[in-house]
């Protein structure tokens, strides 16, 4: 299973089913993501978008189908979840920074404690990453002293510090005000431009159109429609997609 080459999908989702008790939230979802691709998953609340990307790094388990990351089956009993999570970074809607650590410590935690890297190297890396997300000078601020947008950018830097191959963004701008949304979106756009594979769940349609290579629209646990942004936004075929887009745009 490890004979994965970069011309194969880096993340491959096949007919995934997921239920919470009697409630089936994913009813056979499939998608393939190539290395360096940016894909956006959009859809109404409760359509299973967040659940889907939480399955990719095994935060949620699935009841059917398969998800592979670099050819490795994610929902295998014997899988080393920690190895998987070193390859797949995740950013959350509510930032989830460690409140007892400063910005730079938040970024340094995982490489230091999980990868057991040398402290001075990690500190250098953390400073570079904070510079990259435009937070120079905020290294020693605690999360409580930062704005939502700043916290979210620290969270992005924290994920990047593990040098993941794939980044998952779970509605990362949903808790932010319109002004600070921009800061975070710029950061993600930079990442995408550098060739990072990104899977985003988002409600920012303009942004999705601008950065995404491919857009998926989910509703009630299935993918209703997908396609490149221009086709998707201008020539949506499915009436449900059109209805959703009309409400949003």
């Amino acid at each position, binding site marked *: 299973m490890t004979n994965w080459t970069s011309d194969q999908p880096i993340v491959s989702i096949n007919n995934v089913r997921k239920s919470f008790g009697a409630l089936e939230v994913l009813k056979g979802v499939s998608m393939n993501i190539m290395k360096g691709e940016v894909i956006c998953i959009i859809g109404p609340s409760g359509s299973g978008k967040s659940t889907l990307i939480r399955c990719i*790094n095994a935060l949620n388990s699935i009841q059917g189908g398969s998800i592979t990351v670099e050819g490795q089956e994610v929902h295998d009993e014997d899988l080393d979840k920690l190895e998987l*999570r070193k390859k797949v970074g995740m950013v959350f809607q509510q930032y989830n920074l460690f409140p007892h650590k400063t910005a730079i410590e938040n970024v340094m935690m995982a490489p230091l404690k999980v990868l057991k890297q040398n402290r001075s190297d990690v500190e250098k890396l953390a400073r570079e990453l904070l510079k990259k997300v435009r937070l120079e000078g905020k290294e020693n601020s605690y999360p409580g002293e930062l704005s939502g947008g700043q916290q979210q950018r620290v969270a992005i830097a924290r994920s990047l510090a593990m040098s993941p191959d794939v980044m998952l963004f779970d509605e990362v701008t949903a808790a932010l005000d319109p002004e600070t949304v921009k800061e975070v979106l710029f950061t993600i756009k930079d990442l995408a431009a550098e060739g990072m594979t990104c899977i985003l769940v988002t409600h920012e349609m303009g942004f999705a159109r601008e950065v995404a290579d491919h857009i998926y629209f989910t509703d009630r646990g299935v993918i209703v429609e997908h396609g490149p942004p221009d086709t998707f936004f201008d020539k949506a075929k499915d009436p449900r997609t059109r209805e959703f887009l009309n409400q949003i745009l």
Partner: protein
Amino acid sequence: MATKSIPGFYDSGQTDLPVLKPFSPQGYAYDEMYFVRWLAGIQLKYVAIVVLLWPAIAFAKSGSYGMSGAFAALWRWIPFITFEGFFFNVLISIFSMAIGTFFGAVLGLSQLSNVPLVRRTAYVFTQLFRNSPWLVILFVVLLAFPFEITVFGLIIPIPGWVKAVIGLSLPVMANISEIVRGAVNSVPSAQWEASESLAFNRTQTMWQIILPQCFKRMIPPWMNWYAILTMATPLCSLLGVGEIITYSRQAMEAEDNYTELLVPFYGYALMLFFFYCYPIARFTIALEKRFIVKL
């Protein structure tokens, strides 16, 4: 103002419609710091009144021995019951707290284990010692432990106060276990998810991320239990352990057991406990207020 009064706010308001009264969780939620909160809330003027009033009543009722004689007796015995008696109460409380804290932390973390057997065993131990009468636990320990143990031919005696320490540390352990469990559970689950997604394993998440966040939260309830424990140390006198109440009783016997002796001697013991625990309670409440602001 009558014309501008807001019904139900400035006056009681009248309606025959069903209304929801304002709900305050205080008074309903279990307060894990009820004891120090009560103790810290005692106003010193009331303490002063009791300290003055009680001997006054005793004076009024005094018999042939006379209250001044009783207080003179107390004065003679104060060094003994303080430095040989109360000293042991403090010693027992400190040792019990140390042992109880250590094993309570272990038990509390075991209650959070993801191995079902460990978790359930820890739960049973916690509930057993948390809900048993302290005196029963003390007697069981007293009778279950030998007077001396032999290690490689060496006979080591176990004095009564050591058994008292062990006996008192058990209920403390169980309550500390609950404090640890509650504090860890009070950290939002999003913190677990965030560290899991950064490839932290369970142990690393617990020690690097979760425990440092809730350590401060554990200190005030932990001190609450220290105050409760200290107040409970006179239970040891029933085991014959030399501590303030045991020695006060012996002193009163030496003074021929006049009833006038009760108020000075037991009053003195009460005062010692109060003035030892009251600052602890005040400090605990102050700490709680300081920690509550910071998330």
